[in-house]
């Protein structure tokens, strides 16, 4: 029992990562480069120096929250492909509050800006759940569509109403009072990582012990059963998507208030989609999400380094990540079919 769990949670992901690195090495080799050198650069560029490690931690924080966002909806039986959109919504609100509500004092300003971002994400999540509950609209389709809608809204805002100067498509800078306090001076590591770790602990507790979490798991496994034993399926879906969305919104706030400090057209580093990968690799468990977030964060920073100091393009990292996801996805699939036969 315990052994099979260990295998499931650690061995398979480990094998998937190893195979992906191997295939990545072959690709680097075929491009006429030395894979060992590339991987050494990647390692050095992600955790080799305190500066690069700091960058990795910054990315890990966002990935943890994005991963928790995806996993949250997933455990209630829904696929939130719209974290990217919720993130943009959060970013818009946080930026606006950060730029315009100048009368708010210090930490309160930050607090309101973050809450604004969270609410924006939650609202978007509720909208998706509403469409599902009311019209039976598949959330995969609606969330993907909303991603585009949000992308265009951001484009409109930074080239129009929120534009600071006519020559650049970007908003004004948020006030320092609305910025995330830096945790380690001289780096970009801010209290976002503390927040992320706190949230993932809460996440673990919620699904393990809370009544609501148990209800949501039942809804996620079989809504018909949930309905028959008196659990309100629609309400739970609404709540789950609201929370999932608010986590997505929070990633946006963190990105704006902690890193970018202003709304740009393409400010997103794709955390919305990486969140899905992180949750998948981490099997939706709190520790798994944490570890895989660190891994993906390191690969992201390391990839930049590889691109800078060798002729290997950073897209190799994306290929490796994609292979990991593919391998994990196949595995989830094969496990399901086995269980079906067993039943």
């Amino acid at each position, binding site marked *: 029992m315990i052994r099979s769990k260990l295998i499931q949670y650690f061995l398979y992901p480990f094998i998937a990562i190893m195979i992906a690195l191997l295939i990545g090495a072959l690709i680097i080799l075929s491009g006429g480069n030395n894979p060992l050198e590339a991987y050494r650069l990647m390692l050095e560029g992600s955790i080799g120096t305190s500066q690069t490690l700091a960058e990795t931690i910054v990315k890990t924080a966002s990935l943890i929250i994005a991963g928790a966002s995806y996993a949250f909806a997933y455990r209630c039986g829904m696929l939130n492909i719209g974290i990217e959109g919720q993130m943009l919504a959060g970013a818009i609100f946080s930026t606006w509050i950060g730029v315009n509500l100048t009368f708010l004092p210090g930490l309160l300003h930050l607090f309101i800006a973050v809450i604004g971002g969270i609410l924006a994400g939650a609202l978007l999540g509720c909208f998706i759940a509403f469409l599902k509950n009311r019209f039976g609209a598949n959330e995969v389709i609606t969330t993907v569509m909303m991603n585009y809608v949000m992308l265009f809204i951001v484009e409109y805002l930074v080239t129009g109403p929120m534009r600071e100067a006519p020559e650049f498509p970007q908003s004004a800078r948020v006030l320092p009072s609305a910025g995330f306090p830096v945790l380690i001076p001289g780096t970009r590591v801010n209290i976002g990582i503390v927040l992320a770790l706190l949230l993932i602990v809460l996440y673990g507790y919620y699904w393990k012990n809370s009544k*609501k979490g*148990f209800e949501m798991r039942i809804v996620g496994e*079989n809504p018909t*059963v949930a*309905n*028959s*034993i*008196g659990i309100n399926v629609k309400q739970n879906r609404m709540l789950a998507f609201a929370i999932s969305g608010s986590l997505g919104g929070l990633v946006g706030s963190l990105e704006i208030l902690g890193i970018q400090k202003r709304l740009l057209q393409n400010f997103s580093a794709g955390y919305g989609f990486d969140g899905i990968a992180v949750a998948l690799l981490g099997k939706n468990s709190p520790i798994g999400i944490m570890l895989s977030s660190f891994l993906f964060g390191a690969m992201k920073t390391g990839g930049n380094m590889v691109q800078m100091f060798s002729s290997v393009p950073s897209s190799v990292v994306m290929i490796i990540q994609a292979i990991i996801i593919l391998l994990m996805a196949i595995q989830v699939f094969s496990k399901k079919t086995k269980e079906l036969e067993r*039943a």
Partner: protein
Amino acid sequence: MDPILRLKNITIKFGALTANDNVCLDINKGETHAILGENGAGKSTLMNILYGVLKPDSGQIILDGQEVNIHRPRDARALGVGMVHQHFMLVPALTVVENIILATCQTPLINMKKTSQRIRELSTKFGLEVDPAAVVKDLSVGQQQRVEIIKALYDSCKILILDEPTAVLTPQEAKELFKIIRQLNAAGTSVAFISHKMNEIMEIADRITVLRGGKSVWSARKADTNEKELARHMVGRDIVFTSSENGAIRDKKILEVKNLCVSTAYKKNAVKDLSFSVCNNEIYGIAGVDGNGQSEMVKALLSIIPKDSGQVIFCGKDITHDSTKEIFSKTIGHIPEDRLNMGVISRFFIFENTSFYNYRTDEFSSRNSIDWKKEHSYSDKLIQKFNVKASGGKAVFSTLSGGNQQKLVVARELDKKPRFLIAAHPTRGVDIGATESIRKHLIQQRDQGCAIILISTELEEIMSLSDRIGVMYEGKMIAETTPKEASIEQIGLWMAGKES
């Protein structure tokens, strides 16, 4: 003549539990071989081994005189072994042809026309009436089972395994199935048949093997044995069914249903203007052919599906518009007709499944969090008290044998000490020993004041347990009687819609 199939010394272990312990079984060509045993005796496990779903730790499978290795169901099918599982494995949203293609097609391209043709061919050959174009979720259980049988027979099959095929069938549908089995036998197909109903076994089997505690303990030809002897070999003692009777004063109407009307997406007026009431200390049996509105009525009573009109009164309070959650908070129990889709999550642990109705209570939780330790020991208590064969609360629900799953659901509902209980097919799939004890529990519950609605397709069960009987036909209660007043024949007529 050599047997067509010989299972020799099959052993399989799940952790500490030996589910099959040196089991031996011979099946002859063209015979129906019944496999009998208590819940958890290892019948399904043995059949799953033969069908390649499970791999034995040791033992041999000898087919037509040759030892074979069966690694997966596909191998079994190629060797002419087909199986209809205890729980159906059809995709509800797909049509009959699509389901059969899904299970049998080996080529990269599918051929709808050819498959439909083959289905029709099998249909006419064995009297298995089904419409290949019908969507599975619109079919009755009996029809779905025919689809399963066609699926199993599709690649000409020498041995057909039927794992408790009659548990979900009405007696009429069971009769139909027996006809099919006889035709299969006549065509040379052997059938391995599992059932807990003695009368069925005595009717259809040629030979019988009894499993007990994972061992094959006894084998005989039907002609040389009788029901009593079978029961004794199976449980190791005689079974006595208690019948009802009690003298309590029934002065309170616990449940009153007035002019209930229910329609569903598939069926308009599934329940039509239905009225009845159940008193304290009373078992109200509802007889009727399956599909005459019984399940819609139950779901509507519990607000699982909406009511068109009508009123439901529980202990003097109107609960017509209460939510399912509110209804269950009033100590109402429900043994559902379809446990896997209405009562349990089979991928969850046992202790999670037994917590479904109490995790919100103060006893098992504090403010926001559930006390899983308490839930765990509670499930262990239920397992003990109701004699469920399980290694403990920490086992995954789906690893329980079918009958033990049912026993656990019954245990959970009875342990609520409900004031009102809906029991739909409470003994479905459980062995005779457990049937006896579930019936005893129901009667005990009644004697403590509980009002019970008993829904069953087995008239014998209704007759021996009920204090009053209502007969449902096309969504209406067309007759009300007591077991003393009416004969089985009379009720049968009512069930067929013949008012008199």
